[in-house]
């Protein structure tokens, strides 16, 4: 009887595991050479002007570790929308962890799946891994590009990238400004002595954000009293709570907290700890959007949030889809700044709440970026689309 029960329970767990699996298995079928894509909108019932077109079928590989946080999940959702809208097939792979080695291994897996292109989060690779990526993609004949990248690299890395015929380009954010603006928001709220929570300093993004914090300290007369970068603390709400308890025990004169990354994990704990310790006078500024952040803005403690950098993968997919259809919109690799959305006031947070969880660009808008469907589309329009991304831009387009 016990054995039968064990088997039943094991099967139940197996089903649960199967349910957790990604739809990626559906994507493993090799792409066909060409495919007639019905030009319908997201609801699937309106035809796009231009009628039905013969589009090249393609597959795009990307990294999806299954994270559901307010920063990672929208990136993957927007990327999937873009791939499907342009007639492609998404091929996800989950890196074993966040180390550069694990990213390279995940890339190797994607390359074995005969994808036509890969969109990669540079922030997880780091500059040292770029030559490996270039070599692997070059020898596999696979187009590649980076989102969450940096504006500048060492000259030899830059030469290597630009010398590779399969390099599509990269999208970067101005992390230095994002961090500076967070510190400025704290300064405007009267903060002088802040605690810092962020990702390990070895990561490139953190260096840029650190620079922003350092500049703000010298320009605005602020001081970072203490730092927390230990991922043992920065990957959970409870870790955030413990961090704040330690900060305020050791530095009771602290009056602000800047969270330069990992806010999606620690923010609820940080806020709860401030409440428990009766220190609601302390202001908080964050980079990376979180679920439920409007709750903290409404009680006046969260004075700045910066995020919404969800579109890099989708932009790269647009560039690649045009190449695959024989209508590239740009000669050579592109270098574009992807804009952050910055929220300061309660009104900003409430406005963002109305669009949170939805794609920044719907399938209809993305299809209009394919020259095969919209012959008027140009690189200048693409550049304008990327450059005009903001909260207002989304509100205007989506009502």
């Amino acid at each position: 009887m016990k054995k039968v029960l064990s088997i039943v329970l094991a099967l139940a767990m197996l089903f649960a595991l199967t349910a957790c699996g990604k739809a990626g298995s559906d994507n493993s079928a090799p792409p066909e050479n060409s495919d007639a894509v019905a030009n319908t909108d997201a609801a699937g019932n309106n035809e796009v002007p231009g009628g039905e077109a013969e589009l090249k079928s393609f597959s795009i590989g990307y990294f999806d570790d299954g994270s559901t946080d307010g920063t990672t999940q929208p990136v993957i959702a927007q990327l999937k929308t873009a791939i499907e809208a342009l007639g492609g097939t998404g091929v996800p792979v989950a890196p074993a962890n966040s180390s550069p080695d694990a990213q390279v291994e995940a890339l190797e897996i994607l390359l074995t799946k005969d994808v036509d292109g890969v969109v990669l989060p540079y922030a997880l690779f780091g500059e040292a891994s770029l030559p490996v990526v270039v070599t692997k993609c070059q020898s596999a004949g696979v187009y590649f590009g980076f989102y969450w990248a940096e504006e500048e690299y060492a000259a030899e890395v830059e030469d290597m990238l630009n010398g590779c015929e399969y390099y599509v380009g990269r999208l970067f954010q101005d992390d230095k400004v994002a961090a500076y603006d967070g510190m400025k928001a704290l300064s405007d709220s009267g903060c002088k002595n802040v605690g810092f929570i962020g990702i390990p300093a070895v990561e490139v993004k953190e260096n840029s954000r650190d620079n922003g914090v350092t500049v703000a300290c010298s320009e605005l007369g602020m001081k970072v009293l203490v730092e927390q970068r230990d991922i043992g603390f920065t990957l959970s709400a409870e870790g955030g709570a413990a961090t704040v308890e330690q900060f305020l025990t050791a530095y009771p004169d602290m009056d602000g907290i800047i969270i330069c990354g990992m806010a999606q994990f620690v923010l609820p704990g940080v806020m709860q700890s401030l409440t428990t310790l009766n220190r609601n006078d302390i202001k908080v500024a964050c980079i990376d959007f979180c679920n439920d952040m409007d709750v903290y803005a409404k009680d006046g403690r969260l004075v700045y949030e910066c995020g919404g950098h969800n579109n890099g993968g989708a932009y790269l997919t647009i560039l690649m889809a045009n190449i695959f259809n024989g209508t590239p919109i740009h000669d050579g690799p592109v270098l574009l700044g992807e804009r952050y959305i910055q929220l300061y006031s309660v009104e900003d947070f409430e406005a963002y709440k109305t669009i949170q969880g939805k794609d920044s660009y719907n399938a209809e808008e993305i299809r209009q970026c394919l020259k095969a469907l919209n012959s008027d589309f140009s690189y200048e329009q693409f550049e304008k689309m990327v450059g005009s991304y903001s909260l207002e831009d989304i509100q205007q387009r989506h009502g």
Partner: protein
Amino acid sequence: MKAKKAGKAIVAAVLLPGIVYGFFSVLRPEVFLTGFSTLYVIMIQSITTSIIAWGMNFSMCIGMIDFSIAAEMILYEILATIFYGSFGFMGMLILTVMSAFVIGLLKAFVKELIGVRSMVIGIGLAYILASLGEMLSQGRSTIIDSSATILAVAPYNFIILICSGIIAWYLDARSIFGSHARAIGGGLAISKSAGISEQKISVQASLIGSLFAGVAALFTLSRGSGVSASHGLESLSSAFTALMCIFIASSLAKYLNFVIGVFVGAVAMNALSIGLVSIGFDSELNGTVTSAFLLVLIIVSFLSDKKAADKLRREVANAKFLKAKSALADGQTTQNL
């Protein structure tokens, strides 16, 4: 004799955290020697780790390190936020514990079905439980109202700690289950010949671990007022911290009850952690220092045990020698001895 033993236990309980606390009191007296707020923070930061460690202990006792317990705790936190949204505070408490029972039972049977005593099973289960958490948290709010975080506030936080500690102590030191678990840990063949069912104890140990994870989840959720699904093996660091406390408790086991030893270990590690923050130590090296601290402790404990064993050996040899000498003096041959 009893008073001497109790005195030793008190010294052991106070000495380790006391040394750490004293060290940082010298460096930052304004933080560590003004009022009880620092001590209070250290105590409440030790609660989650202690409860998880107590839960892990029974599986460890029978020779299986269950790393999935931290992932399980995060899964229960996510379930708790869902239950809170649908059924309110009391619903959250009752349904979370019930979920811990059901999932714990399921997990225990899966472990039995696989039938391999390896920490790899725990790692595999950690992956599965993390995936379940991610699936459940998709598109949901994973925070609870401040009004529902009462369990993290005194005196409720200490009530949870003390009740969990008493249950862990009873199971460990007073129950038949505890003695059977220790018997299996001491020698599987002998325990089997004594009629102890390894499967039964293993399922019970796993289930008890899950229930402790459920309680830890309710407390931890209240402390952070929210939860993020962990992916992959991100939850392992929490399990490792609990494991360190179990090692510390083991090294103090000669003098101190295991349940108290775990809490003493957690307090010492949190005192170290807060001390490092207070002196502005690089937070990325915090884990390294904590591990080094544990290593030193284990080495000291090992050397101390070795010294005691050597002393015992010498005493036995000496006694044998004296006995032989006395026998010779009585005219017997050493052969007869």
